[in-house]
């Protein structure tokens, strides 16, 4: 896994990118690939690469070119089916100098142009520069596992794996984008192309962008989640399988996806174990192809509310793995939180990324460069409560006045059944909101988006006025044409992938926390073929009334302990506001919540924030009590704190955080050979 950055001038108004600037761009993200650094530049472009060597360690240096040396690439990621593609390309007459997947991308692009991307099964962000046509192609994998950001001004395009690479150019302005903030306080994260910073765009997952001389730009989607509309398509393709047969097909596909991710690597691959079904089954399938030492890693919490040690150890014993645990306390979370935000590069509403930051540190220490995780199963196979809530609300909407129908919520939230009647009534009223919108896009996500939107009451008047006059793009803009024809579960899955998996989970909790310590994540549930199969499955195989991931449970039978298959699903969470309120909390927390800091950043209404902070502090003596803070207060506290950290780190004191100079192992300078030819 790696980091990439670059500059391309689409007009002749600009001088060639300087080595110094390219150096500081890649230096800003050196942790993504500390093994070696490479540079290519010509009169109009500069490409830089930080490498974490995983495949073809001896010969896979980047930037890399084709034989004619007119097509150059910087590439972050893995194409897991590169061996198969290489065979196909060799038959077409292509000759290979290395055994790397990077070279396969170059030849695939030569043969198939931008159609090559839909043939790739992997996780990538890449830039291809054609020195003859002077065109730049940027592309990202289907789900957006690997990040890519862009800034353009006056025919000059800067791109980078992370925004800090772009900000390394002092000419790029750094300011908060109210739309990014608005989306974060609605969906939990900004949705590409919107980012939290003004003028910086995120290349949307599953898309390709092409820049051509004269400042021309074209962008297209080569993939997005799509669900079967014809009931007989599934039967035709797979020969009317029974539920058990379908579970077997899923198991085979997962096994193949995991095998590719274990074996297409020249360094050992380990696995995360959360204690849940998804990571357990992936680790088991990984273990199947790995003899000898197999490394697994788990997070434990000192707080029993979040801890899953029992199941993690049960699984580690089943795998006979070399198992490493870290114990995370509230204090640890508070201590590393600023570093976590340096890597997420965006405000977050939950502290859940922080323990994952600490976990990747321990993976790095153990000498492991790549890990499997179970990320993606809940989105592909309907594991989340939001899908179950949607089913009940849909059922309730048939008779909105029914007092009996909402009793089904007691099934998914057993604590409700134990709650006093009045408390239950309030909970039901919460889900009743928007019931009349059943069948409309976004119905599944209304309760979440409404709760999160309550955080906007803390925003400053200026920002709220600006947003009123100039509303932010909505997650419901640009839905696929067929969206309304999909069943309600498919619609909800699509929105969950677009608004949470791609934006927050795979980024803030995934790539960013892993790469902070130079560890690559590999996600079998996000394999192109696994996703395709899951999207074609009949809805009832995924969510059987209120039973989540039914087919995965079936597919896991015999692979992992029954106790893990049938345990109640525990969503991965970490202590939120409570992590920042004890007597010995680091000083920065109080400072960032102070009136003068809030006034300086001009994002929040200091009075409202002060009210929240004091309310939380007043509970300081009861921090050991579970459920002390409401969901909304937790999100507001963490959201405001992380926004303040973003402002501090990326706007106020950014230059001080940049790394020192780096040395290039690959250095190809063509500035003298190429002419300013626009």
């Amino acid at each position, binding site marked *: 896994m790696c980091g990439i950055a670059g500059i391309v001038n689409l007009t002749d108004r600009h001088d060639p990118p300087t080595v110094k600037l390219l150096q500081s761009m890649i230096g800003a993200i050196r942790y993504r690939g500390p093994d070696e650094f490479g540079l290519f530049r010509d009169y109009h472009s500069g490409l830089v690469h930080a490498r974490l060597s995983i495949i073809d360690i001896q010969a896979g240096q980047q930037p890399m070119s084709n034989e004619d040396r007119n097509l150059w690439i910087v590439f972050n990621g893995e194409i897991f089916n590169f061996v198969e593609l290489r065979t196909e390309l060799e038959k077409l007459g292509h000759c290979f100098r290395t055994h790397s997947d990077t070279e396969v991308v170059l030849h695939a692009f030569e043969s198939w142009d931008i159609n090559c991307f839909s043939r790739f099964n992997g996780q990538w962000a890449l830039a291809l520069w054609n020195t003859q046509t002077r065109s730049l192609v940027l592309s990202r994998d289907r789900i957006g596992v690997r990040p890519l950001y862009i800034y353009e001004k006056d025919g000059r395009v800067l791109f980078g794996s992370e925004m800090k690479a772009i900000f390394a150019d002092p000419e790029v302005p750094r300011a908060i984008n109210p739309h990014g903030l608005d989306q974060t306080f609605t969906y939990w994260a900004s949705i590409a192309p919107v980012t939290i910073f003004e003028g910086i765009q995120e290349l949307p997952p599953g898309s390709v962008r092409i820049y051509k001389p004269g400042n021309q730009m074209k962008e297209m989607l080569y993939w997005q989640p799509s669900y079967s509309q014809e009931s007989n398509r599934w039967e035709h393709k797979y020969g009317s399988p029974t539920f058990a047969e379908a579970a077997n097909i899923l198991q085979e596909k997962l096994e193949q996806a995991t095998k590719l991710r274990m074996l297409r690597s020249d360094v050992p691959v380990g696995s995360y174990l959360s204690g849940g079904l998804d990571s357990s089954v992936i680790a088991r399938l990984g273990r199947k192809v790995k003899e000898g030492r197999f490394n697994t890693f788990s997070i434990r919490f000192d707080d029993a509310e979040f801890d899953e040690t029992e199941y993690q150890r049960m699984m580690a014993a089943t795998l006979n793995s070399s198992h490493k645990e870290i114990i995370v306390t509230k204090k640890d979370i508070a201590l590393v939180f600023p570093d976590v935000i340096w890597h997420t590069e965006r405000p977050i509403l939950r502290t859940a990324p922080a323990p994952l930051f600490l976990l990747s540190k321990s993976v790095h220490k153990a000498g492991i460069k790549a890990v499997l995780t179970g990320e993606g199963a809940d989105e592909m196979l309907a594991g989340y409560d939001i899908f179950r809530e949607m089913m009940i609300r849909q*059922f309730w909407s048939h*008779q909105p*006045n*029914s007092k*009996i129908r909402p*009793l*089904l919520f007691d099934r998914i939230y057993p604590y409700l059944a134990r709650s006093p009647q009045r408390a239950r009534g309030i909970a039901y009223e919460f889900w009743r909101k928007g019931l009349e919108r059943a069948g409309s896009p976004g119905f599944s996500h209304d309760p979440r988006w409404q709760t999160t939107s309550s955080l906007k009451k803390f925003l400053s008047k200026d920002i709220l006025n600006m947003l009123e006059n100039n509303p932010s793009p909505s997650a419901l803009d640009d839905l696929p044409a067929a969206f309304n024809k999909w069943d309600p579960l498919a619609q909800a899955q699509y929105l969950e992938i677009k608004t949470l998996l791609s934006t927050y989970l795979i980024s803030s909790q995934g790539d960013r926390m892993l790469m902070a310590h130079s560890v690559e994540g590999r996600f079998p549930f996000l394999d192109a073929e696994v996703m395709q199969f899951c999207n074609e499955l009949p809805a009832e195989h995924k969510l*059987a*009334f209120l039973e989540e991931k039914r087919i995965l449970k079936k597919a896991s039978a015999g692979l992992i302990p029954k106790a893990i298959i049938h345990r109640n699903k525990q969503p991965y969470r970490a202590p939120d506001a409570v992590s920042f309120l004890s007597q010995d909390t680091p000083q920065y927390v109080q400072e960032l919540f102070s009136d003068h800091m809030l006034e300086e950043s001009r994002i929040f209404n200091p009075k409202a924030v002060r009210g929240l902070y004091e309310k939380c502090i007043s509970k300081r003596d009861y921090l050991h009590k579970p459920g002390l803070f409401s969901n909304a207060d937790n999100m507001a506290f963490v959201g405001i704190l992380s926004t303040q950290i973003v402002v501090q780190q990326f706007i106020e004191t950014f230059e001080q955080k940049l790394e020192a100079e780096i040395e290039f192992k690959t250095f190809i300078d063509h500035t003298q050979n190429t002419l300013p030819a626009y």
Partner: protein
Amino acid sequence: MNQQEIQKTVRDFIQQNFIFNPATVLNDDESLLGMGVIDSTGVLELICYLEEKFQLQFGDDELIAENFDTVLKITAFLQKKLNKQ
């Protein structure tokens, strides 16, 4: 759907989603609530299925044991509802 088909649809759903074990035989006049086959939220699960399957809607006042306690009662009730449509 005729009466036999409705009865089979209902029986199969209960068998597959509440009884699970194919070896356990469910008699169509056995009390589902009395035997503990279905609990109060289980009835709702059944109704959710029936509403989708038969494109019907049930009011709270119809969700009573008289209509839903046995496969036979459910079948008769469904037929009555379908005939009214």
